[in-house]
């Protein structure tokens, strides 16, 4: 391929990487605040993880080991596509094992293995503005954040309680970071929200199309929005058990059994499931791309 001749290490020119890193530093300094940045066009489509990809490429060095997951799966087509691009422009090593990776880029999941100090989790964000559905203007939402005026976010939840008897958010349930900024955690399931609370790893969130970077530094307080008498609830895991590894307290995919038409469950985090399955079979639980 003549790609090598046309493109730099980690795709960007060094000036662009520095620009992205400056935005990241600002984001780390103001937890939960959306830092505007000059999002570049990437070789993958806007809306397909370009925010996360720009963060990853601006940070990656030759010693890094990367893991990319899409909706929990390392082998999902878009995860593979992003991994190919990172590896193609850097030549670094990949892994499926969340414990071994230095950078984990993920769409809509936080891995089941707890993240450790020194790791960086990069989340892809489609809609970074948690107030967008109560206020369509960017000019207005910026001011609401500045004044810490979050009644709109709570009102939306309250309205759900009034209409449906409970908070009916799906993924992307808003969180309050460091008691200051309300933040969209990206469309992770509610099950993953508590993993952000005082997480040991640095969490970086990138929205390429919307041109925003924001961050949850290690050990930061992250609380899901709720009411005293309607506390935040994760998805129901009651009676669910992974059909492959037998896990219980993890986020599951619902599988329709072709024969019976009934529902079965399987770990959504594929590499977590695989390493448990291997451990059960007595094989060493290592990763490797």
């Amino acid at each position, binding site marked *: 391929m003549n790609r090598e001749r046309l493109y730099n290490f980690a795709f960007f020119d060094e000036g662009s990487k520095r620009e992205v890193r400056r935005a990241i530093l600002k984001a780390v300094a103001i937890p939960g605040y959306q830092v505007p940045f000059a999002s570049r066009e990437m070789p993958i489509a*806007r809306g*397909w993880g370009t925010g996360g990809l720009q963060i990853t490429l601006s940070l990656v060095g030759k010693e890094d080991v990367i893991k990319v997951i899409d909706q929990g799966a390392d082998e999902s087509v878009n995860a593979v596509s992003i991994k190919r691009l990172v590896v193609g422009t850097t030549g670094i090593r990949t892994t499926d094992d969340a414990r071994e990776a230095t950078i984990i880029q993920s769409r809509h999941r936080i891995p089941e293995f707890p993240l450790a100090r020194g790791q960086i989790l990069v989340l892809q964000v489609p809609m970074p503005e948690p107030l967008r559905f109560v206020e369509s203007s960017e000019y207005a939402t910026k001011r609401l954040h500045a004044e810490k005026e979050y009644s709109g976010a709570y009102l939306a939840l309250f309205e759900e309680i009034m209409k449906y008897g409970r908070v009916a958010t*799906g993924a992307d349930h808003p969180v309050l970071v460091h008691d200051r900024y309300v933040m969209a955690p990206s469309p992770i399931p509610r099950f993953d929200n508590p993993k952000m609370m005082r997480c040991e790893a640095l969490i970086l969130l990138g929205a390429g*199309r919307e041109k925003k970077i924001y961050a949850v530094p290690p050990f930061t307080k992250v609380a899901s929005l709720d009411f005293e008498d309607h506390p935040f609830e994760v998805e129901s895991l009651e009676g669910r058990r992974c059909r492959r590894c037998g896990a219980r307290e993890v986020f599951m995919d619902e599988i329709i059994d072709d024969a019976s038409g009934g529902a079965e469950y399987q770990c959504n985090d594929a590499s977590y499931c695989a390493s448990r399955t291997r451990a059960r079979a007595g094989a060493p639980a290592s990763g490797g791309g």
Partner: protein
Amino acid sequence: MGYIAVRGGAEAIEASIERLKYERLRKGRALDVGAAEAGLRALVDQVMAEASLYDEGIAALSIKQAEGSPEEAVFLMRAYRSTLPRSHYALAVDTRAMRVERRISASFKDIPGGQLLGASADYTHRLIDPSLRGETDEGAVAWVEEYLGRVAIDACDTNEASEDSAASRPEAPPASAIDYVRSLGLIEERQMDDAEPRDVTKKAIEFPASRSERLQILARGQTGAVTALGYAALRGYGATLHPTVGELRVGRVAVYVPDPFAAGSAKGDGDAYYVGELRITAVETLVPVQVHKGRGKTEIEFVLGFGACFGQNETKAIAMSLLDQCLESGDKRSAVQDEEFVLLHVDSVEATGFISHLKLPHYVTFQSKLDSLRKARGAK
């Protein structure tokens, strides 16, 4: 939903990419990049403008790779552009100082320097010409030779020729139709502002946006999107009175970069280096507006809408000039006057990217929503 792609993603992608190549080549013909560059001028121009990267060769290659899809070709160009260091900002280009290939005014029959129709499909009948099927390269060469024998045109496309012509940097641009209207005192006077613009590709746009930021985004906007919104403005969603094209120019402009080592060079008074020529379309539209003149008097005055883009793309440039005026008006009653609405939705890469992301799996988000639907139903 029964199938979760846990394994096999890599193989599937490989196979899909191969299949795509097969679709491009299956008819046993390889598109010649040179032929694409020579024969698909309008598409090359459109792709360069939307990509905001002026390189006809790379554009033609992108078009070939994208099998002619403008959205894909623009995407390829933009991604490539992201990897290029931005070393310099050019001096402001005065579009009046262009080597004009086409210049028309809808406001005056006689404009200074005369109307120059140039190359335009405006007055062709849109009848499919079967004789084009039999065209050959040899025939093309012969026809051009014969044409240039009888018609004297400034056909210098090559860089060497351009440098000759650029050596004499025009001091005073020729008068235009706009100057005439201005001399009548019918156009609101504005200060010349050659301040270096805020580069929207280096600094994310924040609202309210400056005019330079708006013009940048419109100039690289998707042709169809800019046209559609400009059309909406013209039909009454924004423009109050009928606008007129004051002057539309297509031609080549010289680009200069200030000497990076000379003091004060950014203002254009120091040394500057000629770096090449661009072919562009530039439009000034006269839009009548009501201006309050005190004592209860209201007068009609013209304001200028400006549109410009790489290559020859006149519809887009005119639509852009209408939107420029709509966004300058300060009125926000209609969507095309709302800068957040216009500027955040005309970009090809952003719009096509986000719409196409709906093809990505949404298993987790869907699962989460399903859970809360079930709970809500149970709670009711």
